[in-house]
């Protein structure tokens, strides 16, 4: 997994609450058996005026000029600014893969849906929770200064706007460590293999019907 330490980039304002994972990557693209290549279809229904298909040449489609990510400089954005409950709905990790493939490294919102939040950490995409007033202030600043580059620092747990302010954010220490170092979750877990086996042995005694299947 790619590590995340500090990232500086353009923040794109997506001024909507409850952005669901169906919107982030529509269902027809979930038929892929790969992890990559979802970027051109991120936010497909909002981003293009004509319907899309997995095998379509996206360069031949009509982009929606009103959609924020189609407007320079936001087509080069690497930080997404959104409203509450971002990533709700389906568990599809393809939503995170699509944001990552588009070029996003961080999403900033007042709250995230649990599964999306979790999936993000597994892919080096940092979900940053700030309080609503702080997110409001960021929307105002970005509107006033399009192309504003902001800095997201996982090491110091800060979001820094040029010339201030600086917003501090919280993140679980375990998740932070894994992301800072880009650690492979499975390899770490397998260091506990003996404990897993001991657990299984104990459970076989307590609840023998569980392993009968």
């Amino acid at each position, binding site marked *: 997994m790619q590590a995340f330490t500090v990232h500086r980039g353009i923040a794109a304002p997506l001024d909507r*609450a409850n952005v669901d994972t*169906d919107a982030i990557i529509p269902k027809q693209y*979930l*038929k892929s*058996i790969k992890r990559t290549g979802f970027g051109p279809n991120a936010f497909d229904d909002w981003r293009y005026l004509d*319907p899309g298909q997995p095998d379509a040449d996206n360069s031949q489609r009509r982009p929606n000029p009103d959609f924020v990510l189609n407007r320079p400089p936001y087509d080069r954005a690497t930080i997404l600014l959104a409203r509450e409950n971002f990533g709700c709905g389906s568990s599809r*990790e393809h939503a*995170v893969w699509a944001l990552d493939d588009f070029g996003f490294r961080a999403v900033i919102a007042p709250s995230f849906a649990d599964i999306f939040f979790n999936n993000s950490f597994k*892919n080096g995409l940092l979900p940053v929770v700030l309080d609503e007033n702080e997110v409001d202030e960021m929307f105002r600043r970005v509107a006033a200064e399009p192309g504003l580059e902001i800095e997201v620092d996982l090491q110091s747990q800060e979001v820094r706007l040029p010339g201030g302010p600086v917003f501090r954010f919280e993140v679980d220490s375990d998740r932070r460590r894994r992301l800072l170092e880009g650690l492979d979750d499975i390899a770490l877990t397998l260091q506990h293999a003996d404990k897993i086996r001991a657990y299984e042995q104990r459970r076989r005694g307590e609840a023998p019907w569980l392993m009968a299947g």
Partner: protein
Amino acid sequence: MSGQTLYDKLWQAHVVHEEPDGTALLYIDRHLVHEVTSPQAFEGLRLAGRKPWRADSVLAVPDHNVPTDNRDAGIADPVSRTQVETLEHNVAEYGLKFFPMRDLRQGIVHVIGPEQGATLPGTTVVCGDSHTSTHGALGALAFGIGTSEVEHVLATQCLWQKKSKSMLVRVDGELRPGVTAKDVVLAIIGKIGTAGGNGHAIEFGGSAIRGLSIEGRMTLCNMAIEAGARAGMVAVDEKTIEYVRGRPQAPAGELFEQAANAWRKLVSDPDAGFDRIVELDGAAIEPQVSWGTSPEMVVPVSGQVPDPAQEQDPVRAEGMRRALAYMGLEPGTPIHAIRPDKVFIGSCTNSRIEDLRAAAAVVRGRRKADNIKLAMVVPGSGLVKQQAEAEGLDRIFLDAGFEWREPGCSMCLAMNADRLEPGERCASTSNRNFEGRQGQGGRTHLVSPALAAAAAVAGHFVEPAQLEG
């Protein structure tokens, strides 16, 4: 010391290891797998030279992509076909239990888990699908995971988890006739919102919940995720135990009795504390219809489309305006005046035998209205379909002009050929009314099976009791 919640008990029984910050390595008893969220996980496993930790914990089935008619012809869409074939190769390579598309036991993963007795009370159940919360109806800790976690569970039988906060949603009182589990859960989501359960595991309790059948409880827990909660659950009672008894993968004989005694303890202690308690009066709940593009946008069928001008919060008001524009609805429109183009009865929320019986009871002796272009019934599994046919339900639907299909996810998310065209309006028993969910530009109204059936017959939303003839 205060007592333990059901969630506390399920959690504690599965902790393998705990980090100083409280992050726990949680053991997973059952892993359900389908074709959409698993290919990249198997590929990761293969690339790392790993094998499934416990192959017997897995049950795999294709459901999202499969056609619901003419299965003799196979899967026409080559991309869908590749995905299903990829699952077939993966289960063969690793020796996993699998119900292929033509197996009588094939169906929606959240229907077949409980049906087969793969889901048992007291287990942890995961699947790369957010509606895994369904299985909590049996007193299990069940939640959806992403593909990286699917790979992690395959490789280690465990997941790193931080314990959620606990929420009790208590619904007391007797439900009115015609009010179903679907209406209860939509009313709950309408009350707490789609983010209301974020960071929480929800236990549903109270006399109205205890009065629900196990299938009704599955409908309820299925939509916990639409309230933002990864896990929903209901305490074990005798209904739970009788539901599980005799299932193919459930324990039998003396072992079943031993298990049942352990399962009876899977209830929250009377003095258990919850981080949040939400109460609803069951007797006050009316049949619900969603009007917008989020499951929290619901009103009673007797009500009307709300007005964003009445909403104080500007972000919410803007969300409502956007939803109304997408749905092609005006504020103040009576729900009764909304006329669907299609009706979909199915999905992991409402495709079990009781759902089909409830819809058939409304349809019996009636005909689909002329403005309904398509009314389709998609049973949740081959076994549900077989049971329905044994009861003659298929004839009731077919005689009324409905289509009777093969099991799968179908038009809940339109990954197969079943979908809405732009602008089409659907009365749907599924779980999500997001933009484009049932097809790009499609407009979804979430309802119970009885209400969907009534809409098909009347040509507009109406309470079944108000139908003529």
